[in-house]
Structures are given as structure tokens and as C-alpha cells.
């Protein structure tokens, strides 16, 4: 059993409500941070903890905070990114739904550390009921004087507002999110200037993921050093992993970073193995954007060591044989799934969600989708496979925001690891008429190792 820093109290009945949460020791971190620490102390503690952004990029949070332009001539803002829309990722929803006060606690401490007096939580619009839940929790915090004017008599004031999105994946990108928060289309912009200098309303702004912020409270209580002692190497602490697909127990699990992928997928404590006694074929380990890996490569690194759930171990082998931890959204595929169909599905998603600003992404995602559609539906040509690789290569790195890369990587990695499935579709168009034709694809014995 790993330590449960974020989810330890989830099973306490009524933990969503302020009195119960407070009774379990809630908001003690706010008292400690605001009454006993300076903003610089807090940033130092978070830096010491080694906490890295939980939204996908894994950037050190303390370092991000230290970039904030602290000149007092403009207001500072903290924006909490709760636009969770990466396919396979549903950890922030879990946290907001079950532990809303843990998030608010983190927001108060973080805002205090950053000198922000206003904080916005940007929640994806589809999470309407979570917006209601958050607003209820915020009201409770105001009633108990943890928000508003002069919190705990320290003279520090903070307002938190919930802002709904409206169904745009791209608004999870921080500059697009800030545009959206201004009431505009969610078009990302070129960085620099980084939001730490020019963010919301051209003021210094920090944008952090829900899970990142929620971890700040526990770090203040336990101390950065102790938090850093959990985990492995530069991947410190615990992380929420959302697991879905063909497994026995889909759900959100808090793990200590460094847990072997194999233990995560097969142990009864977590995913509980592959459903219906099937074999494991592939895993997308960090939300749909990261490269897909076949069973043998996700369970062990190219050097034959166990692959661990850490930022570093996931990347081992580069893009040839590695992937990324990303947001920690595990999508698990059994032997019956068709990788061509899945790649087409994801590409359609990215075509739909491309904001349309950059030509490589706007045109490239649509082009890849059409080519993948025809391969999947039995109309593909042999040259299509190289065409896909070529288009993906031309999108990657040539767009303002990472959506272009996110659209290119799943295609490139699926062809890299499952090229024979693409070829099989082209050579056997007759199988393509069935929706679930994945099980009909013959796998050459040497090319793929099921587990």
C-alpha cells in the first residue's frame, strides 16, 4: 500500500462538506502557511518538495512560481486549470468531486505565496454539476472566513471564482485558457511572453493543474523534504493515475511515483488485470496525446528493466521505444482492439479540437483523418502509410501550441509499433466492414509480444 496524500480521506462520509473536512484536520495547512510562513517560505517549501506539474508537462512547480513577475504595480492572478479534456484522463474530476476543500485549501496557500488576491478555477463546461459542487464548497469557505477579506486576521484577502469552459479541448493549453477566460475564442498564442509576465489581462499569472494545487496543502503540513522522500529520483511524491479501457477495475488511483507499470496493471489493488482473461496488447500511458506502446515495451524498458511510473522511466528509450507520463491517463487495450481504428479515432478527435490557427495542424489533422479513415474502411493504399508518417512529421514542432505534436505522436507511434496492422488492413480490405474487426487481424509472431 502506497501513501495516500490526496485521497486518504476520500472514504470519510460527508468529506465534501466543510465541517467534516475541518474535523479531519482540513484547513490546518492554511493556518500554518498564512500565520507562520512568508510567501517566499512557501515557494521554498514547494521547490524543496520537487513537486512537478500534474497536468501533463511535469514542469517543476516551485520553479514556475519563482518566474512570476513580482513587481507590485499590477495585480497577480492564480488560475487553476480544471479543463480536464485529454481522452483517458479523469483524475481532476475525481478530486473536485470528492475533495473540493482540498483544492480550495491549495488555492488559498498558492495565491498567498504568489501575492494573488483573485483566483479563477477554469472548469470544463461539461462538468456542470462539479461547478455547482465547487461553488458550494467555496461558499462554505467564505462563511468560515477562509476566503474573503482579512483571512485569519492576517490582512490577506482572496476571492475564488469558478469559470466554466464550453467544450473546447484546446482551452486546456494555458494561453488558450487565458484567452477563453477573457471571453474570447480559445486560440493559443506564441510564448514568450510567458503568462508569468503577461497572462490574464496582461498581468502576471500562474496557471496550475488541479492536482498540482491540491498537493500544496499536504506539502505545507508534512514539509517539502518529507514529500520529496516519497517517489523515485526527480519524480517525487504521489500521483493520481486514471485507468480506463479493457481492465477489470477502471478508476482513479493514487500511487507513489516509482510503482512498476506491471504492478499497476495486474495487481488487485489497482487495475486488477485485463478484463475477461484477455491478453494485454498496448497501453497509452499519459492521455491520448502520448505515444502508444505495445505490451512488452510498456512493461519493461529496452534495457530489460521494469518500467516504472515516473516521468523519467516512461521516457526511457526516447520516442523509439518510450513514451511519456503526461497527465497519467492510462488507456489499456486488450488483444481484440484494432490499432488502426483507435488511431483514426484519436486523429478525428484532434481534427475536431484543432483551433484552426496554424495550417500544419488545421490541414494536417484533417488530412491524416481522411487517410486513416480510408485505411480503416478498406480503401487504403500501400503508400498511405508513409504518407501518414510524412504528414505527422510535418505537423510536429511546427505549430504554436502542443496540440499539433499531440495529434502527430499517436499516429507516428502507432505506425512505428503496429505497422503490420496498417498493412493488414490494406491487404485484407474484406475484414474492414465489421466494427470490431480487431480480433481478425493476424499478428505476425515476431512483431508483437502480448502479455
Amino acid at each position: 500500500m502506497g501513501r495516500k496524500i490526496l485521497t486518504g480521506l476520500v472514504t470519510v462520509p460527508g468529506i465534501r462538506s466543510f465541517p467534516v473536512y475541518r474535523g479531519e484536520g482540513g484547513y490546518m495547512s492554511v493556518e500554518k502557511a498564512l500565520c507562520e510562513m512568508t510567501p517566499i517560505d512557501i515557494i521554498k517549501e514547494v521547490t524543496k518538495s520537487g513537486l512537478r506539474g500534474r497536468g501533463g508537462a511535469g514542469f517543476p512547480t516551485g520553479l514556475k512560481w519563482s518566474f512570476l513577475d513580482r513587481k507590485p504595480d499590477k495585480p497577480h492572478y492564480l488560475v487553476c486549470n480544471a479543463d480536464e479534456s485529454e481522452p483517458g484522463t479523469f483524475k481532476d474530476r475525481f478530486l473536485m468531486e470528492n475533495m473540493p476543500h482540498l483544492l480550495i485549501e491549495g488555492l488559498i496557500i498558492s495565491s498567498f505565496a504568489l501575492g494573488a488576491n483573485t483566483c479563477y478555477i477554469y472548469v470544463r463546461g461539461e462538468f456542470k454539476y462539479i461547478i455547482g459542487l465547487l461553488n458550494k464548497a467555496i461558499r462554505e469557505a467564505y462563511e468560515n472566513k477562509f476566503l474573503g477579506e482579512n483571512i485569519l486576521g492576517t490582512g490577506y484577502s482572496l476571492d475564488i471564482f469558478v469559470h466554466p469552459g464550453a467544450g473546447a479541448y484546446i482551452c486546456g493549453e494555458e494561453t488558450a485558457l487565458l484567452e477563453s477566460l477573457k471571453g474570447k475564442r480559445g486560440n493559443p498564442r506564441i510564448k514568450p511572453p510567458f503568462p508569468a509576465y503577461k497572462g490574464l489581462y496582461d498581468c502576471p499569472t500562474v496557471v496550475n493543474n488541479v492536482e498540482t494545487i491540491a498537493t500544496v496543502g499536504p506539502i505545507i503540513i508534512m514539509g517539502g523534504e518529507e514529500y520529496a522522500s516519497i517517489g523515485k529520483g526527480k519524480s517525487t511524491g504521489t500521483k493520481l493515475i486514471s485507468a480506463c479501457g479493457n481492465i477489470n477495475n477502471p478508476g482513479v488511483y493514487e500511487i507513489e511515483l516509482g510503482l512498476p507499470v506491471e504492478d499497476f496493471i495486474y495487481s488487485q489493488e489497482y487495475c486488477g488485470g485485463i478484463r475477461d482473461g484477455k491478453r494485454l496488447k498496448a497501453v497509452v500511458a499519459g492521455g491520448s496525446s502520448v505515444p502508444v506502446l505495445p505490451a512488452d515495451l510498456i512493461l519493461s524498458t529496452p534495457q530489460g528493466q521494469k518500467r516504472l511510473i515516473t516521468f523519467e522511466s516512461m521516457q526511457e528509450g526516447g520516442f523509439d521505444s518510450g513514451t511519456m507520463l503526461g497527465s497519467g491517463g492510462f488507456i489499456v487495450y486488450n488483444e481484440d482492439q484494432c490499432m488502426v481504428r483507435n488511431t483514426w479515432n484519436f486523429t478525428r478527435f484532434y481534427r475536431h479540437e484543432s483551433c484552426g490557427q496554424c495550417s500544419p495542424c488545421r490541414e494536417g489533422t484533417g488530412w491524416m483523418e481522411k487517410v486513416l479513415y480510408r485505411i480503416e474502411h478498406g480503401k487504403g493504399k500501400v503508400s498511405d502509410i508513409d504518407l501518414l508518417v510524412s504528414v505527422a512529421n510535418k505537423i510536429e514542432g511546427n505549430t504554436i501550441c502542443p496540440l499539433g505534436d499531440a495529434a502527430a505522436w499517436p499516429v507516428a507511434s502507432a505506425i512505428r509499433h503496429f505497422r503490420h496492422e496498417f498493412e493488414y488492413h490494406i491487404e485484407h480490405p474484406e475484414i474492414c466492414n465489421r466494427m470490431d474487426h480487431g480480433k481478425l487481424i493476424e499478428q505476425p509472431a515476431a512483431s508483437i509480444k502480448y502479455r
Partner: protein
Amino acid sequence: MINHHLYKKEGVNVAFSSKILEKVRLIIKRYPDGKQKSALLPILHIAQEESGGYLNVEIMDYVASLLEIQPIEVYEVATFYTMFNLEKTGTYLIEVCRTGPCAISGGEHILDYLEKKLNIKTGETTSDGLFTLKTTECLGACGNAPVMQVNTEYYEFLSNEKIDLILDTLKKMANGNKPEGSRWVEKF
């Protein structure tokens, strides 16, 4: 995506009730002075719900006047975000998630079943005007796949039997009022 209905007025008068206007004023106050445009997304959610599930030109112009911005600033936002409907939908807008995790967990079969059951194709509305069937991209509930949303409520762990039950319940509810606390204006 821009459809030309956008430029045709329906000739209806729209205005929020005083209770909603009060809420709108509170929402605008959350943003700094002069940044009232920030309130556009929350207010469009309210506007869409109050005007029967879609945004017509009149309601968008009305929202523009409330926020003291140009109508085009509302149109460009309404056409960008997928949650805003520019055309009339059925009483219940059913949106089935079709993205990867749902698709490999039976989401495609759920869509098939709904098409057969409602006797319409995806994108169409039933002749009684009760149901519109659409697909949507990831709803962020992949652990509970397959998932769909009806208007803005989530329905998870779907199966054919569950779909039967949901459709029956919705039909019975069609003439009643919305359940307490489910409206956007109550969420803020």
C-alpha cells in the same frame, strides 16, 4: 461550422427575468472593471438554457448588449465552442461520447443501439421533437465508459438495458418541469 441561420433573425423578443439578470450582474462583478467580456461563457450557458437549448441571433445580440460588447464578439465565441448549439434541438439532446476509451468499451455499439431505438440517424431529431442524437468528443469520464450526456447531465456505464430505462424515464419527464437545482443559473 458557421451556418447561415446565424444571420437570420427569428423575430422573437428575448429578455432575462429579473432574477436571472441579478445573477448576471453578480457574475459580471467577478471580473475586474472593464473586463466584463470575461463573463461571456457563463452567461451564454445561461442564455442557451433559458432559450430552450440553443442560441438564436436575438439572444446573442441581447447578451452582447448586457456585456456592452459587439454582437460579432458573441457570434465568434458561440461558433467556436462545441457546447453552444446554433440550431434548434429536441427537448433532449443526447450526445454519445465516441472518443477512444469509450469506443473500446462499447460506445460504438451504444450509438448503434440508440439509432435503432430512436429510429433516427446521428445528427437527426425524432419526429415528435423529443430527442436529438449527436456524437461528442471525450467527456472526461473514461473510467465510467461508455458515457453519454443528455442536455448537460451525464449517464455512465451504459448498456442497452440502461438506455431503455433512461429513454423511458426521459419520455415521462418530458412534460414536467426541470428538476430542482439542475439549471445553469443555480450552479453559479
